[in-house]
């Protein structure tokens, strides 16, 4: 069984490893796009009264920076690892629904392209400028995003793009829940599941429960904007605050969708590089589950300034502080994993430790705005910008880079260069602290967020310049990483099966793994099979041919229907909606009746 090659084999692929790579590269490109948006934002703010971009462009930039980083970069980067690693870790041939998996990817790609097309199609809408990109913030607060206050198609691109991406996330969520629950190797009990797979499972549950809420919220907004309903309109008795409740009811679980996978990554990396099992495995798993549950009861802490009254403030403040407990427990367990180990300072470990160190800072500033009165000074200022970047950059991004350096040899067969990796790490760590630490002060000294300009009178000009320098340092770090990737393709050290001496099943097979994954599905007897029972999971050559499913065009075709339907609403072309729907239904039917075996 040899792996097919050529463009067709990639367009029709249903192999989780290939889909994982597609997710990775697509998300990485969007990560760079979001990064360029960030550099433009920081260039504008490098000086007071800046003139690098106009107010309209700035508002589009920060909206798309947030939207891109969350929905098009960090979530799909996590999903790239879900795809590539989880089936290997649990000893499966593929995910439960390979074609649904391909569908998820194509919907994600097309949704991302759809939303970013808005940068270039202004002339089609007689907008008087090139761009009609979304400009209402990644949180899209109604009633600013109602047609009355946002006339152009900008917000439509945003809300329809998010709807498309939601389909992808939901489909992915179902797929990974069933994959992890149902396709585990014999003996792989739930409490033997690697923590990364556990966090994938928890994240998937959050995906399938949180996305319906934002879907409905967006449908309401879509109806308000296009069909004259009044969900968020005061004039007819509606209330814009409903949007905030629905958005954050989704939005806070979304925060955990972003952070739990990275927590899973470092829960794999720390044991490997300290040569010790994860300390308190059970506690780490349960605290992940607990965080996901509690994440549903804290949404109004994004709304302490809305005026919900002292009782709501007190309740949501308390639940928010409670969530700090399982989070703290995780951090202590990670430190205890390092404690007493033989710590090897390879690049994945550096990023994992960077995660812990930075996440602590983000967590602590989080506690300060869990206190509603204190939050009244902090919310909507750069202090919160600092907080979320310590959590999502210091946390998620560093965690994902730990995963990239850790699993790169498994995915490609070659190790990323260690020297370049260490330069990358230190540049990135220093860069992010130079960029984001001053923001704590900038916020406390009175600079609100989402402002395209600020007065030199505020006294925060120097700190803003420092922050901009930090942002460009991060950009340099990214260039080092890209260079590392390029030279690794040809000059990278060949990895072998288990270059880091990892303990989980993905290290039991060759790097990169064969198309069928396991020649024989191993039987697992412990949590750390490669440490405790290497002989029982070692892979031999397959005894006979192993059937793997052929590719399919239909998932991609079905996916094409969605952006067409979304485009119909923006172009006011009913026929296009029918074409899109017809393609979607036709694709699903062909896919449903296609002979296909797993």
């Amino acid at each position: 069984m040899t792996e097919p090659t050529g463009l067709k084999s990639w367009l029709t692929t249903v192999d989780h490893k290939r889909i994982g790579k597609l997710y990775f590269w697509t998300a990485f490109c969007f990560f760079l796009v979001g990064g360029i948006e960030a550099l433009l934002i920081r260039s504008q703010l490098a000086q007071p009264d800046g003139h690098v971009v106009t107010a309209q462009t700035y508002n589009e930039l920060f909206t798309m920076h947030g939207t891109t980083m969350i929905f098009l970069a960090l979530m799909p980067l996590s999903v790239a690892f879900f795809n590539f690693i989880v089936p290997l870790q649990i000893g499966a041939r593929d995910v439960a629904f390979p074609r649904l998996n391909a569908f998820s990817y194509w919907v994600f790609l097309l949704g991302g392209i759809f939303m970013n097309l808005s940068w270039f199609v202004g002339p089609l809408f007689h907008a008087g400028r090139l761009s009609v990109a979304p400009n209402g913030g990644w949180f899209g607060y109604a009633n600013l995003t109602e047609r009355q206050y946002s006339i152009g198609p900008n917000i439509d691109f945003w809300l329809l793009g998010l709807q498309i991406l939601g389909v992808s996330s939901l489909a992915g969520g179902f797929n990974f829940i069933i994959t992890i629950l149902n396709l585990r190797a014999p003996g792989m009990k739930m409490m033997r599941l690697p923590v990364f797979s556990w966090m994938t499972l928890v994240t998937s549950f959050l995906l399938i429960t949180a996305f319906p809420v934002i879907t409905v919220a967006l449908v309401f907004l879509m109806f308000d904007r296009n069909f004259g309903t009044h969900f968020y309109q005061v004039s007819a008795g509606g209330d814009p605050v409903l949007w905030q409740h629905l958005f954050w009811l989704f939005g806070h679980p979304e925060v955990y969708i972003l952070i739990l996978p990275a927590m899973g990554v470092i829960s794999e990396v720390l044991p490997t590089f300290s040569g010790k099992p994860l300390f308190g495995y059970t506690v780490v798993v349960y605290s992940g589950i607990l965080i996901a549950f509690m994440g549903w009861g804290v949404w109004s802490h994004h709304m302490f300034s809305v005026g919900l009254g002292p009782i709501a403030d007190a309740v949501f403040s308390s639940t928010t502080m409670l969530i700090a407990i399982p989070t703290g427990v995780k951090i202590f367990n990670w430190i205890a994993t390092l404690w007493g180990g033989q710590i090897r300072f390879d690049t994945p470990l550096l990023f994992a430790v960077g995660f812990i160190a930075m996440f602590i800072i983000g967590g602590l500033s989080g506690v300060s705005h869990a206190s509603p009165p204190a939050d009244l000074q902090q919310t909507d200022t750069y202090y919160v910008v600092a907080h979320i970047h310590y959590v999502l950059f210091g946390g998620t991004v560093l965690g994902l880079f730990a995963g990239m350096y850790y699993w790169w040899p498994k995915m490609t067969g070659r190790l990323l260069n260690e020297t370049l990796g260490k330069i990358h790490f230190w540049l990135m760590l220093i860069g992010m602290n130079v960029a984001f630490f001053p923001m704590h002060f900038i916020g406390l000294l009175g600079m609100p967020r989402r402002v395209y300009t600020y007065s030199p009178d505020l006294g925060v000009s120097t700190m803003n310049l420092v922050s901009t320098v930090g942002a460009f340092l991060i950009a340099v770090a990214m260039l080092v990483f890209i260079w590392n990737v390029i030279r690794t393709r040809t000059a990278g050290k060949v990895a072998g099966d288990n270059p880091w001496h990892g303990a989980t099943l993905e290290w039991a097979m060759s790097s990169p793994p064969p198309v069928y994954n396991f020649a024989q599905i191993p039987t697992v007897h412990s949590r750390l099979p490669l440490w405790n029972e290497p002989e029982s999971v070692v892979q031999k050559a397959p005894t006979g041919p192993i059937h793997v499913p052929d590719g399919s065009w239909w998932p991609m075709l079905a996916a094409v229907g969605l952006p067409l339907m979304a485009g119909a609403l923006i172009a006011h072309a009913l026929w296009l909606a029918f074409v899109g729907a017809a393609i979607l239904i036709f694709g699903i039917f062909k896919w449903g009746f296609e002979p296909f075996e797993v």
Partner: protein
Amino acid sequence: MHKHRRLIQRLLPGLLLVALAACAGPFPQTTLQPKSDLGFAIDHLFTGIFGWAVGVFVVVEGLLLYALIRFRARPGAPAPKPTHGHTALEITWTLAPVLILVMVAVPTIRTIFQTQAPAPAGALKVQVIGHQWWWEYRYPDLGVVTANELHLPVGKTVGLDLTSNDVIHSFWVPAIAAKRDVVPGHVNHIVFRPDTIGMYLGQCAEFCGDSHANMRLRVFVESDSAFNAWVANQKAGPVEPAPNSLAATGKADFQHGACIACHTIQGVSAGVIGPNLTHLASRTTIAGATFPEDSLDLALWVNHAPQRKPGAVMMDMNLKPVDLQAIVAYLMSLK
């Protein structure tokens, strides 16, 4: 223990300020130098939380660093002991954060209820109305309407009633009033007592469209006599320009121009879309407290509002230089 905490609470903001002073200053919009009972209550709470945060930071990052240095791999060292967990430790590091969070939660909840109490009888009432992108202030008991610059008497409790005319804004004056969203269809409240005479900067904190960054404001906390004089001046009708003066020409132009569609000048026009201009020249700024109130900026504003303030509702008036000069002269006379 208690004495210790108080010491920390006094030292920390000091340290913070020293660190900041090294950068630049002064910081007219800072949250760290409160000048009202509300501002002080919040600052006191934040200082306590900040102290705990610094303590936790030092301990946890210290443990992490110690583990990294102490347990780095050494050649020839025996394989580490495969410890899987420790129940007593788990309980300890669950309870420790619980205790710290209780220490944070108790004063938090106390402060929530203390700072959200309704305004006492006799408080000065001001209605704050958010517009894209300027602030309207109405003093219902005093019969005063003004924009962007709020005047308050020192030492007297103020009750602000906040609402919006269009989208959601957020009223933020860090030194005295903290922050509260300004939501259409809702009336929110801020109650506080400014305790120091001075001028304080603030601005809208909730993203509200193109010129969100240009929705600024000023608060003048004044002595009773200064405040009363201001009120008396605001209640009087507009200054009548001397006959045949440039300002008189400007008034005629104003009355016959597009200005009256949006602006009120008591006895002259009754537009309600833009700010009330009856005493425009008594203010120090224009256009959402973004530009100084002087002839040059007024002229630029009248003829180039959309360029100066992206998205501004006010059009480019495109006046000929003579007319512009006259209108500016008239506006500048409205003390």
